C-alpha cells in the first residue's frame, strides 16, 4: 500500500518520541537493578556473607576421651576401648523406616534394637547423630561402611566406650558410666554441650560419678562444610578435644582382689587403710557386680536379679552401710574415761553379769559375769559391765566428743557414692530428733556401741587408724590426678595422751593375742606381722526378758536377717602399725568367729603384698587355712584383663 510522506514523517516522529520514552523507562529500570545489586552486594554484604557461612559451616563436637583410672601401682582399673557403632542424622533421611530396614538387613538387629533406635530418633534433635546400633563387630561396621552411599544420613563411627578390666572388684569404688539420661539433665546443673550428645557417657556411681569433672575432659570442635542437604563435604578445621585427667587411686588391686574374694559368699564389707598416710588400700563390699554390664546396657532380668538379691549387691556397704559398732566402740568409751580422769588403767570394776540402773537391768554378754576387771581385761574379754560403769561416770557428751575426734559421726570426704555420716548421738541430738530427753540407759547402750550409735566400716577403719597412731588420720582415695599428687592424710596429733593410747592399744593386743582374748583364736604368730584388734557383735534386735530367762537364742537358730552383725577392727603390725582394718559381716553372728578370721587374712595379705603366708598362722590351724585360701578365686595381678568376671 501507499502512504504519504507526511504520514511517514509524522509516524517517524511519534515512534522517535515514544521510543525515547520507552528507552528512558528501560534505562531507569536498569538503574534500579544496579542500585538493588549495590544494596545487596555492597551495603548488606557482611550480613549475607555471614548467612552464607552459617549455611555452609556446621560445627560438630568432638567428644573427649575419658580419663583413665589406675590403682596405686599403675594398673588399669577403668579404661576406654574402641567401640564401633552406626549413627543416623534424622534430618538427612527422607524415610528413616526404610533406612532402618536396609540397615537391619546388613547387620544383626533385634526388634528391640530397632524400637530403641526409633525411640531415640523421635526423642533427639533432627540434626544430631543418633546411635542406632552399638558395639558392632568390625565386619558389621565394614558392611555398613561399604553400603554407606545407599544409606542416606548413616555414618559408621568409631567411638570409645568405658571398660573395667578388673570387673566386679572395683564395682563399688569406681562405679560405672552410662549414657546421659533426661533425669541426669534435669538434675545436674551443667552447661557442657557434651551432655547433649546422645549416649554420651557420664559417671553414674562411685568415683566415676564423683570425679566426673576431672575425668570428662573438654570437648573439641570440628568445623565441617556441609551442602544443602547437610552431607559433610570436607573438614575445614578442628580443635582437638582435651582428654580427661587420669586418676590414680590409693587402692592396691592385688589386695582389693584378695579382699573381694575373701568376702565372697557373705554380705560383708571391709576397709583397709594405711595408717601412715590415710590411703585406702582396699575397700571391699560383697556381694559385688560386674560394672561392665551397666556400660553395655544391663538387661531387665540381670537388673532384677541385682535389686532382688537380699544381700544387696548394688550397695557399697563399706561406706554407705552404717551399723551399730558394738564392742568395737569400747576403745572410744575407754579413752573418754581415761582422758576425763574418771578411771585409771589399773582400777577395777566388778562385773556380776549385769548392772541395774534406773530399775532396768543391763546385761553383760557373759551371763555369769567377769568378776573384777581392769581396763586391759575389759577390752580383752569385752566386758560390758565395765563400760556401763564408765558411761555413768563420764556421761554421753564426753564419749560422743571422743568418738568425733576419732572420726565417728563424721562424713569422710572420699569420692564415692552416698558416703554415710553415721551417727554419734548427744543429748541435744536426741531431744531434736526423737523428742525425748536423754536417759541414763541411752548412755549405757552408747558406751558399748549399741543404741543410737551407727558407724560405717570406713569410719571404723579411720577410728582404728587414729587409735593406732594418735593422729587425725583422714582417708584418701585419690592418690593423684593427672600426675599431681593429692595431699596425704597422715593428720595432725589428736592431742590424746600417748600413755592412755598405749594402754588401750595394749588391751587390743591382748584381745587378739593373749589367751582368753575374744580374738585370740585368730591370732597371728609371726611377731613381725602381729595384729591388735577388737571384736564386736552388734544386736539388730531386742532381747526380751522372756528370751533372756529362757536362754538367749544362738545366732545359728535365728533367721539370717535377725542374726547379729559381726564386726572386727584391728591394726598391724602391733608394734609399729602400718595398716588398720575394719570388717563388718552383716548378720554374720559373732565378731570373733565371723569377722575376725576375715580381718586376720586381710591384714596378712596387706602386710605381705599377696597371699597370707601360712607360717603366720598358729600351726594347728594351718591345714584348714591352707585349703580355704586355695579356694579363693584370685586373679593373677600381672594379667591386665580378668579371666572371667566374678560377681
Amino acid at each position: 500500500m501507499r502512504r504519504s510522506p507526511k504520514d511517514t514523517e509524522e509516524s517517524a516522529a511519534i515512534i522517535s518520541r515514544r521510543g525515547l520514552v520507552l528507552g528512558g523507562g528501560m534505562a531507569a529500570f536498569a538503574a534500579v537493578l544496579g542500585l538493588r545489586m549495590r544494596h545487596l552486594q555492597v551495603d548488606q554484604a557482611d550480613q549475607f556473607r555471614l548467612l552464607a557461612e552459617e549455611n555452609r559451616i556446621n560445627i560438630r563436637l568432638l567428644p573427649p576421651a575419658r580419663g583413665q583410672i589406675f590403682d596405686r601401682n599403675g594398673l588399669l582399673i577403668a579404661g576406654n576401648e574402641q567401640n564401633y557403632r552406626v549413627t543416623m542424622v534424622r534430618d538427612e533421611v527422607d524415610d528413616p523406616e526404610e533406612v532402618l530396614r536396609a540397615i537391619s538387613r546388613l547387620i544383626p538387629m533385634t526388634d528391640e534394637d530397632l524400637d530403641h533406635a526409633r525411640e531415640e530418633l523421635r526423642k533427639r534433635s533432627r540434626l544430631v547423630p543418633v546411635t542406632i546400633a552399638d558395639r558392632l563387630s568390625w565386619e558389621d561396621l565394614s558392611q555398613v561402611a561399604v553400603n554407606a552411599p545407599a544409606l542416606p544420613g548413616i555414618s559408621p563411627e568409631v567411638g570409645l566406650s568405658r571398660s573395667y578390666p578388673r570387673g566386679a572388684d572395683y564395682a563399688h569404688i569406681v562405679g560405672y558410666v552410662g549414657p546421659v539420661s533426661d533425669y541426669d539433665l534435669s538434675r545436674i546443673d551443667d552447661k557442657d554441650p557434651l551432655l547433649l550428645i546422645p549416649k554420651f557417657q557420664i559417671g553414674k556411681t562411685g568415683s566415676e560419678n564423683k570425679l566426673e569433672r576431672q575425668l570428662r575432659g573438654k570437648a573439641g570442635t570440628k568445623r565441617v562444610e556441609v551442602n544443602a542437604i547437610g552431607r559433610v563435604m570436607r573438614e575445614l578445621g578442628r580443635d582437638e578435644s582435651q582428654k580427661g585427667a587420669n586418676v590414680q587411686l590409693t587402692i592396691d588391686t592385688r589386695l582389693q582382689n584378695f579382699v573381694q574374694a575373701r568376702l565372697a559368699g557373705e554380705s560383708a564389707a571391709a576397709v583397709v587403710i594405711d595408717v601412715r598416710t590415710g590411703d585406702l588400700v582396699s575397700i571391699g563390699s560383697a556381694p559385688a557386680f560386674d560394672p561392665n554390664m551397666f556400660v553395655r546396657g544391663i538387661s531387665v532380668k540381670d537388673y532384677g536379679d541385682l535389686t532382688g538379691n537380699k544381700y544387696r549387691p548394688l550397695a557399697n556397704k563399706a561406706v554407705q552401710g552404717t551399723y551399730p559398732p558394738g564392742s568395737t566402740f569400747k576403745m572410744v568409751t575407754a579413752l573418754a574415761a581415761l582422758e576425763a580422769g574418771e578411771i585409771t588403767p589399773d582400777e577395777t570394776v566388778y562385773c556380776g553379769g549385769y548392772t541395774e540402773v534406773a530399775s532396768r537391768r543391763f546385761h553383760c554378754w557373759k551371763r555369769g559375769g567377769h568378776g573384777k576387771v581392769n581396763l586391759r581385761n575389759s577390752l580383752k574379754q569385752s566386758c560390758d559391765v565395765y563400760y556401763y560403769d564408765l558411761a555413768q561416770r563420764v556421761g554421753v557428751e564426753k564419749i560422743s566428743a571422743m568418738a568425733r575426734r576419732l572420726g565417728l559421726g563424721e562424713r569422710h570426704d572420699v569420692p564415692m557414692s552416698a558416703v554415710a555420716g553415721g551417727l554419734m548421738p548427744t543429748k541435744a541430738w536426741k531431744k531434736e530428733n526423737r523428742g525425748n530427753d536423754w536417759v541414763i540407759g541411752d548412755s549405757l547402750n552408747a558406751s558399748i556401741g549399741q543404741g543410737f550409735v551407727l558407724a560405717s566400716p570406713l569410719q571404723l577403719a579411720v577410728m582404728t587408724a587414729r587409735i593406732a597412731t594418735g593422729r587425725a588420720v583422714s582417708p584418701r582415695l585419690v592418690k593423684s590426678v593427672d600426675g599431681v599428687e593429692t595431699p596425704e592424710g597422715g593428720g595432725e596429733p589428736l592431742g590424746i595422751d600417748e600413755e592412755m593410747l598405749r594402754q588401750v592399744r595394749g588391751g587390743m593386743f591382748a584381745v587378739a593375742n593373749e589367751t582368753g582374748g575374744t580374738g585370740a583364736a585368730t591370732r597371728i604368730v609371726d611377731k613381725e606381722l602381729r595384729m591388735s584388734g577388737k571384736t564386736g557383735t552388734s544386736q539388730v534386735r531386742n532381747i526380751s526378758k522372756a528370751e533372756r530367762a529362757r536362754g538367749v537364742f544362738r545366732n545359728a537358730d535365728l533367721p539370717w536377717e535377725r542374726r547379729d552383725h559381726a564386726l572386727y577392727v584391728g591394726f598391724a603390725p602391733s608394734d609399729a602399725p602400718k595398716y588398720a582394718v575394719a570388717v563388718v559381716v552383716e548378720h554374720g553372728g559373732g565378731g570373733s568367729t565371723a569377722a575376725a578370721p576375715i580381718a586376720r587374712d586381710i591384714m596378712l595379705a596387706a602386710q605381705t603384698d599377696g597371699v597370707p603366708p601360712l607360717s603366720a598362722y598358729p600351726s594347728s590351724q594351718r591345714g584348714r587355712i591352707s585349703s580355704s585360701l586355695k579356694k579363693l578365686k584370685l586373679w593373677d595381678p600381672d594379667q591386665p584383663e580378668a579371666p572371667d568376671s566374678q560377681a
Partner: protein
Amino acid sequence: MSYLEYNVKSVPSGLSKVLYLNWPIVVLLTAIASVGFLMLYSVAGGSMTPWAEPQMKRFAIGVFLMLCVAMIPVWFLRNVAGVAYALSVLLLLAVEFFGSTGMGAQRWIDLGFMRLQPSELTKITLIMFLAAYYDWVGVKRISRPIWVLIPVVIIALPMYLTLRQPDLGTSLLLAFGGGGVMFLAGVHWAYFAAVIGAGAGLVSAVFKSRGTEWQLLKDYQYRRIDTFIDPASDPLGAGYHITQSKIALGSGGWTGRGYMQGTQSRLNFLPEKHTDFIFTTLAEEFGFIGGISLLSLYVMVLVFCVVSGLSNKDRFASLLTMGIGLTFFLFFAVNMSMVMGLAPVVGVPLPMVSYGGSAMIVLLLAFGLMQSAHVHRPR
C-alpha cells in the same frame, strides 16, 4: 512513496550485507554468551558437561541462524509476519494437546530432533506481527477503538494459551512486549492508563479469588507470590529460592568470592543454579563488579537496539527493532528482579546466559530479524 520504491538501490546486496550488520550487537551478544559459558562451567563444578558444551554448540547454531535471518530482506519478513504469528499460535495449541510436561508445566513439544518451546517463539512472532500491523494501519486510525481492539486480541490469544500451560512468566512477557509495541506505534496514552487501571483491578481480583471456586491462578503461583512478599516466612519451604538467592548475591560483596569459589552454588544451596538462578552464581563469584558488568553489557545491547530502531526510517523495521530490544530488556529485567527479590519467581531465564536451547536460539533469531532491519534500512 513506498519504502521499496526509493530504497532498493541503496540497500546492500549479496554477501556485502555482512559488512553492514550491526556488529557491536554481535560482539556484545557473544560476550554475554561467553559469560554464560563461564558460569555454566563453574556451576557444573569445573566441567564442560553437562551444560557448558551443549550451550556453546547451541550458541554456534544460533549465531549461524541469526546471520541467515539477517540476510533475508526485511520487507519479506514483514510480508510473512502474519504467517509466522499464525504458525506459532498453532504450535501453542499443539502444546495444549500433545505437549510434554516438564517441571510441573506443559511447555514444549518433542519434534524428535529437538524440543520446541513454542511460547519462546511466540514472543518474537508477536512482536513481528504487531510491527507489521502498525506498519499497515495508518497513523490516523491507530487510536480508534476498533484498531486498538485488533492488536489486543492478537496479544491476548497467545497469552491465554501460555497461561493455560501454565506459564505466568511468558504470559506476562507477551503482554509487556505486545503492549510495548503498541505504545511505540503511538496508541493513545489513555488506553494505557485504562489498561494499568484494569490491571490493578485484576491483581486485586486475583488475590480475592484465592481459595474460592473461581480461583484465577494455580496454588503454586499464589505461593510464589506469598514468598515474594515475605520470603522469610518459609525459609526452608517455598521461600527457600529467594532467601538462598539473596544470600548468594549478598555474600559476593564487591569483588566476589572468586571464580568457582561460590559456596552457595557449589554446595547446592542455590536452586536451579544453571537456569533461572544463574545470575546469583555470577554475583556470588564475581561480586558487584561482575554483576554490574553483565548488567552493563545488557544495557549496551539495549542502547544499540534503540539507536538502530530510532535511526531506522522504516516503520516496520523501527518497531521490530525496538520491540525486540524491549523483549530482550524484559527478559533480563524480570530475571534479575526475580533473583534480587524485586519480583516474584516466575521462571524467566537470563537471556543468553541461562542454560536452555529454545530461549537462546529464539533470541538469536530475534536478533537476526533486528539485524535484517538494520542491514536493509532505508538510506
